[in-house]
């Protein structure tokens, strides 16, 4: 990254932090909720980025961690009377443990096979939760109501989501500086070569998958508590996986801030379009995503980093590079 890019990045980070802290105190509840959802997607996209971006394993089933996190919290709190501050970390751990168990067989697959297998895992989990008694099947399950003022609740969820996102960032930044991070990138670039150089690829991949699951699980717990009621088809929706991947790609795969910028821009664009076009918004949204992928396949982060000057040539060069 160039000097200029580093400065830009710092400035953007600063703006994000200031805006992030100030927004809830300057706006109404809807805007807070809007940004809470955006933060959730930023967590999901960032978590996906760990396994999909840094490790190079494009998981199409990451929503399963959101669902597990949501259901662990719902079942513990509703059926077990467990307080939220215990259910919350338990949701993250539950999703991480599931990632380890499922990762052992699934991470042996590569490319399309891995993508399809993870897709299957999420669908299978939905079917399972649909039919279990403890999850109250496909009619859904309530969570206890929070005893706080309306404003208090929204501030609580907003800052909790933000906390999880910051944690995701810090952990990602931390591992990137360690052997684990280099190992993951080595796996992405050439798994066999990495293995022959002494990288314990199985362990590294599973760790990466578990981290991805952990943060998504925490987000799921918060999501469930805020919604107050969850259903399998909503929290195991494959559309959520697609959304997090689109966000990660839109912002810039394999960068820390990319998924956040992706989530922010996608959510804002989608919100504005929905406001103007009651039905046609999906069409415009699709068009914008296609244009973005064609012209800026490396995402927002690549533009910001200042590696190459932004302009018409930048866009054309991208098209040439990717032979579209």
């Amino acid at each position, binding site marked *: 990254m160039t000097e200029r890019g580093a400065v830009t990045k710092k400035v*953007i980070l600063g703006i994000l932090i200031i805006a992030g802290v100030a927004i809830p105190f300057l706006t109404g*509840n*809807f805007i807070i909720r*809007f940004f809470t959802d955006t933060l959730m997607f930023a967590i999901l996209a960032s978590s996906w980025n760990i396994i999909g971006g840094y490790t190079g394993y494009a998981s199409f089933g990451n929503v399963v961690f959101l669902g597990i996190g949501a259901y662990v919290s719902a079942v513990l709190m509703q059926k077990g009377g467990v307080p939220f501050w215990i259910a919350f970390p338990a949701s993250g751990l539950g999703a991480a443990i599931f990632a380890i168990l499922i990762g052992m067989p699934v991470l042996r697959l590569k490319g399309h096979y891995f993508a399809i297998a993870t897709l299957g895992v999420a669908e299978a989990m939905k079917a399972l939760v649909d039919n279990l008694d403890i999850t109250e099947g496909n009619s859904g399950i309530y969570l206890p109501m929070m005893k706080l003022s*309306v404003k208090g609740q929204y501030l609580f969820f907003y800052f909790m989501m933000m906390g999880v996102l910051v944690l995701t960032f810090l952990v990602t930044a931390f591992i990137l500086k360690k052997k684990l991070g280099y190992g993951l990138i080595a796996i992405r670039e050439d798994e066999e070569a990495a293995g022959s150089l002494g990288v314990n690829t199985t362990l590294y991949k599973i760790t990466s998958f578990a981290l991805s699951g952990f943060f998504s699980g925490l987000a799921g717990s918060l999501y469930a508590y805020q919604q107050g009621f969850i259903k399998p088809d*909503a929290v195991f929706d494959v559309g959520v996986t697609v959304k997090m991947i689109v966000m990660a790609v839109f912002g810039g795969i394999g960068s820390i801030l990319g998924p956040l910028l992706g989530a922010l821009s996608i959510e804002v664009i989608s919100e*504005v379009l929905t406001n103007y076009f009651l039905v046609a918004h999906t069409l415009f949204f699709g068009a914008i995503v296609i244009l973005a992928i064609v012209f800026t396949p490396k995402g927002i982060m690549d533009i910001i980093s200042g590696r190459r000057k932004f302009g018409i040539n930048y866009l054309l060069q991208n098209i040439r590079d990717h032979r579209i």
Partner: protein
Amino acid sequence: MKAGSKILKGLLVMGLVIGLVISLNSGAYSKDVIKIGCAMSFTGKKSRTGKLYVDSLKLAEATINKAGGIKVGGKAYLVKIKFYDDKSNAAESAKLIEKLITEDKVNFLLGPYSSGITIPDSIVAQRYRIPMVEGGGASGKIFSRHNPYIFGTLPAAGQYFRTTLEMLAGFKPKPKKIAIIYGDDKFDISVAKGAKKIAEGLGLKVVLYEKISESSADFNTILTKVKSLAPDALLMAGHTEGGINLIQQAKELNVNLKMISLTVGPSEADFRKSLGKNANYIFGVASWSPQMNYKGYLFKNTQEFVKIFKAKYGYDPDYHNASAIAEMAVLKNAIERAGTLNPQKVRDAIAKTDLMTIYGPVKFNPNGQIKGSSVVLQIQGGQVYQVYPNGTKKPIYPMPAWKDR
């Protein structure tokens, strides 16, 4: 381009976008309008049914406004429904309800389509203490928490057989044993589950409670079981085809019960044609159909509503459409009775609703769900009659044995 100017540009764009989001939400309304908010599925999996609600709600809105609006304390207000698209997504819908309340400052809320989306929405309504009338969610779960701000115009699947069982429990001598069989689908399972609970509450013993495979078309095993257990009544939650097979085979096996009731079938002409004479005395239940005729509140009566609706949209309204009309009728009536736009007072007025609509009589249970609006039907002499409550004909019970017909 210098780094500085680029950052400035980035900042500008970001500020603009955030500003846009915020400014977009300040809808301008004149003062004499009652704003009603509704997040409905315009796109996504539930959009097909969602459209039925939108069509009906728009028709109701236009009808109310044409007739002079809603009168509150001697002053007439026009109604304006503010719609958003929830993309068939529960989280999106809850967020939009938030927006309708805090940004659009709507006075009252209408529900979305489907139970899974209605529940999160109702929780938001409860947080802000704004009443929500919904006609798109039937699950008992919506009302199981006794959320005081949610009112539903669809009878619960679990309540489907309530009127039948109440009628049954009122017969002398009181029947003791009943059998419940149900098809393998979500709705049927809910119907059966609810029926079992109601039956037990009424002191009826459920001697058989079994899931059946309707597609196999073979009811011999289950009917043999029924015969040996000899219940007074057999209730089946299933579909027309299965119902026809069941009745035919019951006759072949000479299974004589005092009552056989089916959820779907008896009201349909096809069912009676297929079974001919054997269809006689079979009981059924129904919530709404365009053949009914109730005196209306927004429209003169059901038949007139069906005519106007068909002329406007070109298709036959079904119970979703009628239920949506009832939503608006309930709101208008409650606001006028309350004589104020105060959400709490209107909520209390909604709770006391006792209204005839083209959808049928609307009264709410203490939990907010509509009171037993399903009626008991019986086929007598090849025709379907409502036999309970306040039927046009008396129910014939017990059914005559097959050999005595």
